[in-house]
């Protein structure tokens, strides 16, 4: 029984890590008033880049760095289109995802040794290392405190992002820009710079999410490696009410269902595998409906009020 809990916990966290990075990235992006539907594509390119660079340079950190850069770059394209050119955010985001999916699949086919496929290659990967002392605890030791570096970094990142958002001056500016850009502008906050900065930062986290898939979770490249995680991240942002701490709950929930589903398939249930594969996504929809129904109606929390709306100073409203 203890083993079962440990293993479920382990898979939950491993499956949840990349999802949480992506969700946090989208939360920060949306907080500035920019909706980035390019998560799926950005993660995918991030995963492909991370693996390709790590494989050829045999340096995992170089792979990670490349994924972060590429993630930031893709977000920069979105930022330029939507903030400077005021393109429709939905259209631009979808375009980025379509572009990213295609690009990543192309990279997967060509970036193996001698221009062959990357599928099935073994490359450097982040290994799970038990933490000193904490790693010796029962149950949580071998699960929560035996993870890879990217997951550990996430343990630090979540409280930092929360603190930054709610307690610092810059977090205040970020929230204000997403809620009422004009109010922020007249108080001397530069709306354009703020939106650019957090859209790119969000993209970097999405790149990180991709890197964890190919360098940590799956330890290799596979076609459609993200498997819709980018879309689930967007849903989790709503579940999380744009709050980094609540995003953890969402990621754990999703990761947990994933883990359970794995266990059931391993145990050989009679339920068809396709149905089990569907459960995480189905559950996401269910949770979304319930949460949205309850909280947005009752409380004064919801999407940043200016989400999706471009800002131009002298435009008549």
């Amino acid at each position, binding site marked *: 029984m203890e083993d079962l809990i440990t293993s479920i916990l382990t898979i939950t966290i491993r499956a949840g890590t990349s999802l949480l990075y992506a969700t946090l990235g989208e939360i920060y992006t949306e907080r500035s008033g920019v909706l980035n539907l390019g998560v799926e594509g950005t993660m995918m390119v991030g995963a492909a880049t991370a693996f390709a660079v790590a494989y050829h340079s045999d340096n995992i950190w170089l792979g990670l760095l490349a994924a972060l850069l590429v993630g930031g770059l893709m977000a920069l394209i979105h930022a330029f289109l939507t903030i400077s050119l005021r393109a429709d955010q939905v259209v631009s985001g979808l375009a980025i995802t379509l572009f990213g999916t295609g690009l990543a699949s192309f990279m997967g086919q060509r970036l193996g040794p001698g221009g062959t496929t990357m599928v099935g290659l073994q490359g450097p990967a982040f290994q799970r290392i038990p933490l000193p002392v904490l790693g010796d605890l029962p149950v949580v030791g071998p699960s929560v405190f035996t993870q890879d570096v990217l997951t550990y970094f996430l343990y630090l990142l979540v409280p930092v992002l929360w603190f930054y958002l709610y307690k610092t*001056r810059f977090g205040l500016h970020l929230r204000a820009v997403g809620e009422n850009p004009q*109010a922020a502008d007249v108080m001397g906050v530069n709306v354009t710079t703020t939106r650019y900065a957090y859209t790119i930062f969000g993209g970097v986290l999405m790149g990180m999410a991709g890197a964890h898939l190919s360098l940590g979770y799956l330890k290799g490249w596979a076609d459609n490696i993200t498997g819709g995680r980018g879309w689930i991240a967007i849903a989790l942002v709503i579940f999380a009410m744009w709050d980094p701490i609540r995003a953890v709950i969402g990621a754990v929930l999703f990761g947990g269902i994933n883990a359970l589903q794995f266990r059931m398939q391993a145990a050989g249930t009679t339920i068809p595998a396709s149905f089990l594969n569907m459960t995480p996504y189905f559950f996401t929809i269910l949770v979304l409906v319930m949460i949205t129904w309850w909280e947005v109606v009752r409380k004064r929390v919801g999407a940043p009020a200016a989400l999706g709306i471009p800002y131009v100073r002298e435009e008549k409203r």
Partner: protein
Amino acid sequence: MGIESPPSPAVQMRGITKRFPGVLANDHVDLEVYPGEVMALLGENGAGKSTLMNVLSGLYRPDEGEILIHGWPVHLHSPRDAIAHGIGMVHQHFMLVETLTVAENVILGLDTVGWVPRMEEVHRQIEALSEQYGLRVDPTAYIWQLSVGEQQRVEILKLLYRGADILILDEPTAVLTPQESADLSRTLRRMADEGKAVIFITHKLDEVMAFADRVTVLRAGKVVATLRTAETNKVELARLMVGREVLFRLEKRTCQPGEVALEVKDLQALNDKGLPALRGVSFQICAGEILGIAGVAGNGQRELAEVITGLRRATGGSVRVYGRDITNRSPREIIEAGISHIPGDRVGVGLVPNLPISDNLAMKAYRHPPLARGPLLDRSAMRDFARRLVEAFRIATPSPQTPARLLSGGNQQRVVLAREITASKGILVAVYPTRGLDVGATEAVRKALLEERDKGAAILLISEDLDELMQLSDRIAVLYEGQVMGVVVPEETTPEAIGLMMAGQRAEE
């Protein structure tokens, strides 16, 4: 020292010109404001007052002209630059972030507060300022929890916290009760006494006379006069502002109430936040009568109009039209029952801005002949219909095919009026029908309402303009926090008495 010299102006604007596509909003405007004075900027809607002050506060860039602050030429490229020069503005539409607290709004954009602002200290500082200027507000409250009056105090605190010594307020009294306005005038005076330069924008003559030391009158983007208030009077100011003699009274015939057309009984409803907005509202309106609803915005007026017109569910009570219960019926059934609606949000609810005027005019009549031919629309009948209404209601438009969004506010309202009055079968719910309209358009709308009344319509008139309510209404009901504080007859009461009721005091029986 010792030698008498006039103080140098805090603000000098010279030859300011600002153009928008198709509009010359400011035309070589000169303006001077001195430290220690309250200066009024007077003008009709659209005269260019807000534009001029947006230029001064760095939000708009002027096309021509220069600005001197305390004698030094400055270039204001953004609100940040203006703040750095001690200029602060309370905008007509408040610039507050609803989901943040008062204190968070106050320190927003300041870089002197450190990376991690110490909120307790900020709270203390805000309380001290509140005390000093008589601007009571809880620094830990969220903006969405505050009344409009409190929100305005937050806006002023924002400026004081930054140490602004040139303060601009854009139509600050539009949202206040008469008592709150009096408090505000004391606050403005206190700030001026400390040597700050205070500019306040208004189109109300009483306020100019009551609040200001000097007044600059703008008309169609140009300065027409700058006067000391001690040396002028309301009639002169009105003439300067409008450019012709103005009648202060409208023709109003004595009313002949017929039978009860609209009866509202113990009506209850929730607002968008799910909190009670109407708590047992009752009244009757007879045919041929105008019942005015007074109250500070946000006390249930919007919800009242929405419940009656079927756009919001009543959680209790009833609405009856000539005795027939129509509570919580669909808007369509309510239209058929005879209620027409002039919504407060002209562009968002009253019109489809991208559709041509002819379609907007047909929006209610299209279901029946002559505009409908079976399931099809008769386009040529629609064109005739539109032409007739455009003429009858004097809608100034290049053609009936022009999209509604391209019309000025006054003409947009004429389109709504034309459609609603034509479709009306005896009951009209008019919400803020003259809000944002200039004097000419306002007169036309008011005349139209009085004409309808004389033809026997029962009219519910919701307005934030007390003068308008006093002029048009046969009776006035005052709403406060979703309850009727009392019903009065305009000829037998004073604005002050209504003001007290607007602030929550019940009328003595």
